[in-house]
């Protein structure tokens, strides 16, 4: 009966609420938003004129941004699309930022002060090639202010004023690789130089005015070239020969090409191993990177190579900049443990330093990877320098006068994976003074709120209230709270750095650049893969810290071995780290923990052998006890094959390793390659809690949900329709949705959507799947829902049996019992295209669910699951209405207030993570992309707690007033009665 009451109450609530928007003054109370740009690729300073000094950067996350040189704040920022990487960025005419992107096919000009797009030119593209941008440094008044772009096999001259293409010239032949486009002293000749099949040097002399090829000079070099060439001075280029044993000087002055080969061992005998030309432009100098050192060379007056300097590793050089007429400087960064020595040297005279500084760097930042320098005139007319450092962890630092002026944690723009950790339990023994202080603060706050309620507050008071709400110390404490709102979000970034962010304000609690993920011997190209909870102590929560597992791989090849690190969640210290002796194909966290509450993980290697972690006797006992009930499946998206496996015995290859198990193939599903291409697989979240197996429908009837942890949703599309939307006709496109049981390989349901095209996004939760795709016939996006019900349980409707508990609804079931399922499905149109999709999760799974949709506009939209109910009908009956069924519409509504991100954007959104709070009504939402965003939402409103701005003081005062009134009236009535009796 109570449940009924509750249900009725909920229904009432549901009828009353649809939106869950926030008021203006609630922004920032529970949410935070951080803006990042990613790892900087290019940086151009703009600090000549008075006014705001800025640096324009382009990054690996396809961001162009203008940063304040004083603070590092973003003036403006543009995130280009995922497949529109920025190739180069330059400043033209001192007011435009010219960017070349999409492999040299899109040229854009942005207004430097405010970042507005001035013009955009789409350039002709015939074949992929290098993309080069040349912006002449000096613009004459009578000149047309051209910028020269080479990309896609075409050379274009584009007016920098309006983006008009003045002329174009195709420089494409098979095997031609144009590597440099440059002008000499702003003459009328543009040079485009490159290699033909790496055997021939080609130089085109092109007229700046009309793009005519004035001269074409070729010369073949029999031993071939390696890699790219570097322009050292006006008419000399440097390259390496194919064997990388000699340096080739290419002199192409005045139409004649001559090579001059020098063996590296002749000039620097100690150099051994693989050498590489450092791509820093040093005007007259060039550097070679060898295994052991960095060697700086110069041509002497007779054209011979002279070694100028040798630096030990790790050393980074900047490009040279000219500070005065004829004086060029460049920066040398050298590491010495945690210190970095910055030396700015003159190109002409390496013996004297223009600047020598030493800065202390945070050890978790790693080495400097790139440096950009800029000069300024100090008040005493001497030259000062500032250096922009790009670190190994992708952070960006500005160093000036031996100090780090600002730093940006831009590694957070490339989050790979995330998990959460509880904060430490609050220990006893809080000082009295603190309590008193907080009590005073509390009272003061509530008095102010009371004033606000009674409309007595002055604007100052309102500002104070807002301040207090935003900066409440309660939300940034480093201890666990009653509602479970305070947690640590642990994120793993592409750079191999692990950050712990506090959910209260998003600050970095600790960060750790994993040593094991840095380039080292035998681990050439480490890439961070996965973050997983390793140990969550419950019994010993007071004394033991939780820990997370970081998995990485040494290279892109699937045979490369993995790295396995365990990190303490509270301190950020590495507990243990090991290089796995086997490769890493799949990681499976198991639903078991050992006696120290470490989660069991299976790592599958390329031989399909499973390795059990942690390697303790305890874990093996647990695993062996359950081995017959543990299965795994692998999906090969390229081949279109799904296979299911069980474990049977110890590895044959290594009988002594008792933590290694063989897997045996049980089933396989092969999608025919000519008609189906795997688009997406989706599973339920491992930690999802489902409250009940029954769904009460209209007229007190009941349906039993099919709830299985091994339910797998797989969608395939026709191979022809794998491209862009609109590239195929509706007849050629289809989407096939499968529901597969991952244990038995049984296909529970299969449905074909004709005329549907990807991209497909899907989310699986409880007993339903929602997926999003494009409908070519209707020219609209569509969202479909499939709900799965267990028909074999449907007969359990005898009340008496249920009352007496004589049913087998809760007894453990085997998936081999082949439950009979029925599905209900429905499709709805949806206006937005979707980048990511997820569903809210709550602690007990009672609260109704919302879908969280990362839209194309990089916002997060919350959509009630009730709209995606397959049982919606055009005219619901009274009882169906009571159940909360919304009348059928063809389109899903988008309510502006239900944007979780309100007015903010999570640029380049790549993932949304939902974390249940302890409070049943509330879900924590963390969205990441280039930006980070965190908030908490209550899909059915906070029915289990008072809102944060509930006025306790008003309640208290009301109670006190009522008690006082009762006392007074009692006394008065007593007196009156006495008076009456005396009459």
């Amino acid at each position, binding site marked *: 009966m109570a*449940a*009924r009451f509750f249900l009725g109450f909920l229904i009432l609530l549901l009828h009353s609420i649809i939106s869950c928007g926030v008021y203006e003054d609630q922004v920032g109370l529970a949410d935070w938003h951080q803006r990042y740009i990613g790892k900087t690729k290019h940086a151009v300073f703009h600090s000549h004129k008075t006014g705001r000094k800025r640096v324009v950067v382009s990054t690996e996350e396809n961001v162009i941004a203008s940063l304040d040189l004083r603070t590092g704040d973003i003036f403006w920022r543009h995130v280009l699309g995922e497949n529109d990487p920025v190739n180069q960025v330059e400043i033209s005419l001192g007011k435009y930022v010219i960017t070349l992107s999409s492999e040299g096919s899109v040229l854009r000009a942005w207004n430097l002060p405010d970042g507005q797009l001035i013009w955009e030119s789409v350039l002709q593209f015939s074949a992929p090639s290098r993309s080069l941008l040349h912006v002449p440094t000096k613009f004459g008044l009578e000149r047309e202010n051209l910028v020269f772009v080479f990309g896609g096999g075409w050379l274009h001259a584009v007016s920098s004023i309006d983006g008009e293409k003045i002329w174009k010239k195709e420089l494409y032949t098979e095997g031609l690789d144009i590597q440099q486009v440059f002008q000499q002293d702003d003459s009328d000749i543009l040079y485009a130089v490159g290699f033909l099949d790496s055997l021939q040097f080609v130089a085109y002399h092109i007229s700046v005015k009309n793009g005519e090829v004035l001269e074409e000079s070729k010369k073949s070099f029999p031993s071939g070239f390696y890699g790219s060439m570097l322009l050292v001075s006006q008419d000399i280029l440097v390259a390496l020969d194919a064997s990388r044993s000699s340096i080739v000087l290419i002199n192409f002055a005045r139409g004649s090409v001559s090579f001059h080969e020098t063996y590296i061992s002749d000039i620097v005998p100690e150099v051994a191993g693989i050498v590489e030309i450092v791509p820093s432009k040093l005007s007259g100098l060039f550097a070679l990177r060898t295994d052991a050192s960095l060697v700086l060379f110069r041509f002497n007056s007779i054209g011979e190579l002279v070694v100028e300097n040798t630096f030990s590793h790790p050393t980074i050089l900047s490009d040279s900049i000219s500070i005065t007429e004829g004086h060029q400087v460049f920066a040398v960064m050298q590491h010495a443990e945690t210190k970095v020595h910055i030396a700015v040297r003159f190109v002409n005279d390496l013996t004297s330093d223009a600047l020598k500084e030493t800065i202390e760097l945070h050890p978790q930042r790693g080495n400097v990877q790139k440096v950009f320098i800029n000069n300024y005139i100090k008040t005493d007319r001497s030259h000062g320098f500032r250096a922009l450092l790009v670190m190994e962890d992708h952070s960006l630092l500005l160093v000036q006068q031996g100090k780090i002026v600002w730093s940006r944690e831009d590694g957070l723009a490339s989050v790979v994976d995330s998990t959460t950790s509880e904060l430490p339990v609050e220990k006893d023994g809080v000082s009295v003074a603190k309590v008193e202080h907080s009590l005073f603060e509390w009272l003061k706050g509530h008095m102010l709120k009371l004033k606000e309620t009674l409309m007595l507050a002055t604007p100052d008071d309102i500002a104070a209230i807002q301040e207090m709400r935003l900066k409440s110390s309660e939300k940034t404490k480093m201890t666990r709270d009653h509602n479970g709102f305070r947690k640590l979000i642990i994120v793993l970034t592409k750079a191999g750095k692990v950050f712990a962010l506090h959910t209260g304000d998003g600050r970095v609690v600790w960060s750790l650049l994993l040593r094991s993920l840095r380039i080292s011997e035998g681990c050439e190209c480490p890439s961070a893969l996965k973050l997983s909870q390793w140990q969550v102590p419950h019994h010993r929560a007071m004394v033991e810290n939780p820990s997370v597992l970081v998995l990485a791989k040494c290279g892109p090849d699937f045979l490369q071995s993995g790295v396995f690190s365990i990190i303490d969640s509270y301190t950020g210290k590495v507990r243990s780290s090991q290089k796995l002796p086997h490769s890493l194909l799949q990681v499976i966290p198991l639903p078991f923990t050992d006696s120290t509450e470490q989660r069991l993980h299976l790592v599958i290697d390329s031989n399909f052998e499973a390795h059990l972690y942690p390697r303790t006797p305890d874990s093996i006992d647990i695993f062996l006890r359950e081995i017959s009930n543990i299965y795994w499946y692998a999906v090969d998206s390229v081949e279109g094959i799904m296979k*299911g496996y069980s474990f049977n015995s110890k590895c044959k290859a290594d009988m002594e390793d008792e933590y290694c198990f063989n897997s045996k193939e049980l089933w396989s599903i092969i999608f025919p390659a000519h008609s189906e291409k795997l688009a997406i697989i989706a599973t339920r979240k491992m930690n999802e809690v489902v409250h009940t197996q*029954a769904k009460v429908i209209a007229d*007190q009837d009941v349906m039993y949900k099919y709830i299985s942890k091994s339910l797998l949703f797989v969608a395939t599309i026709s191979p022809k329709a794998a491209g862009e939307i609109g590239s195929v006709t509706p007849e050629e496109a289809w989407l096939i949705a499968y529901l597969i049981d991952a244990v038995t390989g049984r296909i529970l349901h299969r449905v074909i959507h004709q005329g549907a095209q990807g991209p497909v996004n899907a989310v699986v939760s409880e007993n339903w799947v929602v997926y999003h795709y494009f409908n070519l016939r209707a020219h609209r996006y569509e969202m479909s829902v499939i709900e799965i019900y267990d028909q074999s349980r449907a007969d*359990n409707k005898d009340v008496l049996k249920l009352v007496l508990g004589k049913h087998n609804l*809760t007894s*453990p*079931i085997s998936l081999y019992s082949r439950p009979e399922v029925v599905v209900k499905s429905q499709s709805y149109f949806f206006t937005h295209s979707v980048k990511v999709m997820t569903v809210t999760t709550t602690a007990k799974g009672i609260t109704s669910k919302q879908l969280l949709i990362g839209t194309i506009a990089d916002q997060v939209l919350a959509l009630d699951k009730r709209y995606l109910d397959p049982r919606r009908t055009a005219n619901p009956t009274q009882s169906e209405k009571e159940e909360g069924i919304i009348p059928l519409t063809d389109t899903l509504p988008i309510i502006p207030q239900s944007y979780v991100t309100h007015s903010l954007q999570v640029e380049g959104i790549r993932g949304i993570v939902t974390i249940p709070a302890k409070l049943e009504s509330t879900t924590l939402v963390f969205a990441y992309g280039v930006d980070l965003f965190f908030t908490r939402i209550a899909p059915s409103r906070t029915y289990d707690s008072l809102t944060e701005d509930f006025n306790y003081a008003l309640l208290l005062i009301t109670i006190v007033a009522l008690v006082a009134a009762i006392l007074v009236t009692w006394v008065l009535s007593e007196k009156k009665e006495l008076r009456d009796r005396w009459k």
Partner: protein
Amino acid sequence: MEKGKGLARRWAVEFAESSALSSSSSSGIPDPLGYNISLHDLDDSTVARQKKDAEAAWKSQKAWEVAQAPFKNLMMMGFMMWMAGSTVHLFSIGITFSALWQPISALQGVGKVFEPYKDSRVDTITPKLLFIALNLAGLGLGVWKLNTLGLLPTHPSDWVSSLAPALEVEYSGGGLLIN
């Protein structure tokens, strides 16, 4: 005698009345003062019996009336319930609970209700039974109303709505291969 007059004189004999009274006597001699022949004629025991009979009759009539009283109540309740409708809201819940409470409290006090009519010669069992039956009917009406409001756990949905999902014996993990 009225109070106001009593102050003037304590007692008085109206002689004029005697003639009227004397005419009723058989001997013609006036009856002595204060003598009333009518009282003298009746037998003491008969009077008492008659009086008791009348009381018993009255008591039993009253008991029946009390026993039938819930019927009116029942009708009224029925009307109120009909007015309240079948959706769960404050009014219907209030009505239903009062419909349940009234018969229960009445049944609790069934002895007390018939206490004044208790008599060796009065049969209160039957009215009591009627009373109980009518109240039970009222209770039944209340329960029926409760059920129509959907507040009684008479459907399977009431018993399975918080039934936890069954545990699965098997576990399967995996996904796309890491490449």
